């Protein structure tokens, strides 16, 4: 219960200075939740512009994460150990990388249900006997190329074939996994290239390479989204595709590129996951589409597109992995875990709705 009530003050806290500034301080708090000309804009100016648009939501999520930390530390003595925290980050790494791509796609007004299947097909393809004979470089190259080609296929069908993203990627989800099963004959393909497996086992300063990989991709993704023309156009294409088109943006090409980007992220994630399990298999990445979409949504990105935050998405991933970790430490069954995940998604969407309820006048 405390999970649900405590984030609120944190959400409203930044509003207070804005309120004072516009001179309506006396009217009091609750009415501020109602629509107004631009408390959001005022808030945006108040805060440092580290994380545009959704930083307030992200702060709320940060509080949730801290609370989870408190709960974890209180229920298990092992929670706050370095090993465990590294453990959490490591298990967040794969889904984190996928979520970067998913965030771009969703902000751009689409959705990618095929991410899990792309991971599977990339994992299987990069671990065939033939591919493994090319060594580490060949395997990584194959995974990324397979990921981007499947993403390109998604993108072409959606942007130029004008098939709804949901349907296209749903179809891709089924058929890409089918391809993975056919390629591997449903056997797991053990990786014999030692250097490849070391991607998952190598550590720098006690932290696995996987975590650095995720961090690097998240930072790159954040810069791409918030500091480049590509990112700006992604927001525009998702926010109002018709206006974007009439403003001279190549909307179809941009949409296609978003799915390629998602595919590339899946390819990288496939490398990381395959190295962790030291084998390629067609059942890898199962249900990752749901995990990544859930993380994006609780991170404050609108499912309708046009607004969102990569930072929020990553916090979303961390919230989910931390919950799993706490449940495992306390020997709780996975069914309760799933219920908790579901509840968190609902609460996050409810919070998002009160924020999104403000109509654009």
């Amino acid at each position, binding site marked *: 219960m405390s999970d649900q009530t405590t984030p609120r003050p944190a959400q409203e806290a930044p509003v207070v200075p804005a309120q004072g500034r516009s001179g309506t301080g006396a009217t009091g708090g609750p009415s501020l939740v109602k629509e107004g000309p631009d408390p959001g804009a005022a808030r945006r100016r108040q805060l440092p512009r580290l994380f545009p648009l959704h930083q307030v939501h992200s702060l709320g999520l940060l509080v949730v994460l801290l609370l989870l930390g408190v709960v974890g530390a209180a229920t298990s003595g092992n929670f706050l150990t370095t090993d465990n925290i590294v453990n959490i980050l490591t298990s967040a790494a794969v889904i984190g990388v996928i979520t970067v791509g998913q965030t771009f796609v969703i902000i751009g007004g689409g959705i990618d249900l095929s991410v899990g299947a792309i991971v599977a097909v990339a994992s299987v393809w990069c671990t065939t006997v033939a591919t493994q004979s090319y060594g580490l470089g060949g395997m990584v190259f194959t995974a990324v190329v397979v990921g981007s080609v499947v993403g390109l296929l998604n993108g072409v069908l959606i942007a130029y074939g004008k098939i709804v993203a949901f349907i296209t990627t749903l179809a891709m989800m089924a058929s890409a996994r089918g391809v993975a099963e056919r390629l591997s004959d449903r056997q797991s393909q053990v990786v014999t290239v030692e250097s490849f497996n070391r991607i998952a086992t190598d550590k720098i300063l006690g932290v696995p390479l996987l975590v650095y990989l995720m961090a690097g991709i998240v930072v790159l993704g954040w810069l791409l989204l918030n500091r480049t023309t590509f990112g700006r156009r992604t927001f525009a294409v998702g926010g109002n595709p*018709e206006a974007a*088109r009439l403003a001279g943006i190549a909307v179809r090409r941009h949409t296609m590129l978003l799915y390629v980007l998602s595919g590339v992220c899946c390819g990288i994630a496939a490398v990381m996951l395959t190295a962790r399990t030291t084998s390629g298999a067609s059942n890898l990445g199962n249900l990752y589409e749901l995990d990544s979409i859930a993380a994006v949504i609780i991170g404050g990105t609108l499912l309708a597109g046009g607004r969102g935050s990569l930072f929020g998405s990553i916090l979303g991933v961390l919230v989910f992995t931390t919950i799993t970790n706490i449940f495992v430490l306390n020997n709780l069954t996975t069914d309760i875990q799933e219920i908790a995940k579901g509840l968190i998604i609902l609460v996050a969407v409810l919070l998002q709705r009160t924020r999104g309820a403000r109509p654009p006048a």
Partner: protein
Amino acid sequence: MRGITKEFPGAKALDGVDLEVEPGEVHCLLGQNGAGKSTLIKVLAGAHQPDSGDLTWDGEPVVLPSPTAAMRHGISTIYQELDLVDGLSVADNIFLGHERARYGLTRRGETAAAARELLSSLGHPEIAPGTEVGSLSPAQQQIVSMARALSHDTRLIVMDEPSAVLTQDEVGNLFRVIGELTAAGVAVLYISHRMGEIRTIGTRVTVLKDGRTVAGGLPATTPTSQLVALMTGRESAYDFPQRGGQRALPAREEVLRVEHLTQPGSFEDVSFSVRAGEIVGLVGLVGSGRSEILHAVYGATRPASGSVVVDGRPLPPGRVTAAVKAGVGLAPEERKSQALFLQDSVVRNVSISSLGRFARFGWLDRRREAAAATARVAALDLRPADPQRAVGTLSGGNQQKAVLARWLLRGCRVLLLDEPTRGVDVGARSELYALVRELADSGVAVLFVSSEVPEVLGLADRALVLREGRIVHEAEAASLKESHVLDLVMEESRP
């Protein structure tokens, strides 16, 4: 309504509004954008709750806690932004919320029959009840909206700028319907920026300014200058800028040339050209192909045949990106849905078409971007002068300025304006006219579409008259008379 106030955080939208509407009258509500008209309507429709003040209905005080409550009392509202469900049929839209149903099953036959009856009473029997609303023209959608309002047992109909999307003869038809309604004792609250209309159908006029009633229940015969003065503190209604560089015109080079542009069903064999520094106006009824021509020139649609030449180079048909690259800009008719990213800041809206200029290898220099956009916005005197404000919170006129600023920043050779003053109040219109003229004087070729004949005659150098997709007349705008243009435009559609 008495002493209605409504406060939003940071802004007092209504500050003591009085309004009295009698049965059987057409009461006109006048006021600049931001005067509180829309808020007032929403209070009447039960969509907003007033913070103080009383509503009296039939001599009894009432509260309208919800839109449904307002409808039960017989108050229907036709909003400016049509609120129809595109994917549903005409009949379903008309009876949305109060479906003809029994035991939860809709009665399709009865619904269709009732819809048909309503539509023919509005003079539009040609709209089939089974048609999907999204496939109708804006004017037809307006009729459906009205039919919906009438489908309730209505005693007061609020119309927010109903004529904005209508052509002259459709407006005539609207007035006929309004006449019939008022004869039956229904009261109409009519909001419009067009003085002529108020003159024609209005009984009384109430003027709002800054959330207050500045004059209530004036007779509709009050001189325009007096009404405009009440709204703005200014005297004249339309201020058209001087046609400046006219003497130099023939010498200027041709920037845009359109040759034999054809799209069966929309327009046929359209050819014209626009010179640098010239403003050309396209007049015609809704459905005469005005907007369609602009869209084809811009590459937003691909015409069946014909060519568009900018600065001597033909544009590839159907490619907006190529047109923009060649220096063509469009301010579309539906600002909110076709031009703006409502939640985004003014800066982002302005810079979106010129991002490449502020980037190196895709990396945005956001400081330069903001500075350049802010400079354009300031040059256009966009208010409030806050470039970080969400563009959706601005008034219609200022939103239009944001769109113009976008093309100013991009720097264009040809500017296409589709109904540039739609939803823009009288004061801001003059400003926009001056801006467009200024742009033209700086060498831009301007082509604009308007359904308001005086606007074309006042602003344009040259006017092209369209009828059923063909250019039927071309003349210096200054030499044309409004009545003549109306004649040309409607010749065929006359009985």
